[in-house]
């Protein structure tokens, strides 16, 4: 049994070395502009800073004026089931593969509002961190966005990307 354990540890150790080795040499992990290799995910912060939150009233106003870009950070299925009208889908969990879809639509100084659903939901928070890291300073979170938007009776849509 001791020999088996020893061999099992050797398998794990060899795998770790190979994994880290391969990772050090691959350059395909990120879409344009995203930092390569580490970190793959951004740590969540406990709370959003005041400047990182957009109030519902302001979000509504920006939406009416058509000057803000709304991003839905929930899953594609959630997005298709219903989302804020004119919002684009950028699921946090598929960020690496989906960022390329919205990148051409964004300018660096664009007013971006990200949302998910539920007060506890931190998907939009994670998305904010990623977008800020990519050089979009004017990203803000609409906390509990989907619920609040529906509660306010504002326009929604269903289906795939607009």
């Amino acid at each position, binding site marked *: 049994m001791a020999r*088996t*354990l*020893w*061999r*099992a540890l*050797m*398998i*794990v150790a*060899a*795998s*770790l070395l*190979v*994994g*880290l080795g*391969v*990772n050090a040499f691959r350059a395909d*992990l*990120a879409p344009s502009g995203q930092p390569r290799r*580490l*970190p*793959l*995910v951004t*740590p*969540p912060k406990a709370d959003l800073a005041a400047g990182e939150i957009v109030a519902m009233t302001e979000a509504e106003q920006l939406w009416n004026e058509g000057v803000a870009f709304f991003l839905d950070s929930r*899953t594609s299925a959630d997005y298709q089931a219903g989302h804020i009208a004119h919002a684009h889908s950028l699921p*946090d*969990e*598929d*960020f*690496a*593969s989906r960022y390329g879809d919205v990148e051409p639509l964004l300018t660096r100084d664009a007013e971006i509002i990200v949302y998910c659903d539920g007060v506890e939901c931190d998907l939009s928070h*994670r998305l904010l961190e990623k977008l800020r890291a990519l050089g979009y300073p004017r990203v803000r979170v609409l906390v509990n966005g989907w619920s609040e938007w529906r509660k306010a009776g504002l326009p929604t849509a269903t289906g795939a990307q607009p």
Partner: protein
Amino acid sequence: MTRLLSFVLRLLLGGAFVFAATLKIFDPASFANDIAHYRLVPHLWINFIAITLPWVELTAGLALIFGFWRRASALVLLALTVVFLIAISQAIARGLDIRCGCFGTIGAGQIGWRNLAIDGALMAMAAWLVWREKNERLGGACEKDGSIVAP
């Protein structure tokens, strides 16, 4: 007969892990996100796990398929399935609306009993192989009557 069963289980178990590992190796960023959503490990560890764990799965899976250090590789996979069992259980218990991430982005539905059942089946296979594969050998093995059986 048990040799044949061992052989089949090694192919099934090893194959499942090699398949899962390959998907994750090609898309570590998605896997890192999936791990993060489990809310189980500190953030400092997530990238490390996302980068290395699939390689442990791949190495142990390949070793098992090719009959190299069978018992040890089955033991590694058994340990992994136990860890996965804990992770999936706590996600279900806490009602986390996340996807398993077990096989990359395949089967991206919400995590649930199905994932637990698959993991349980893999765990049973691994446990049986650890128990059975006492004689580890490179290459083929001979039955008592001298006939050569598949490695």
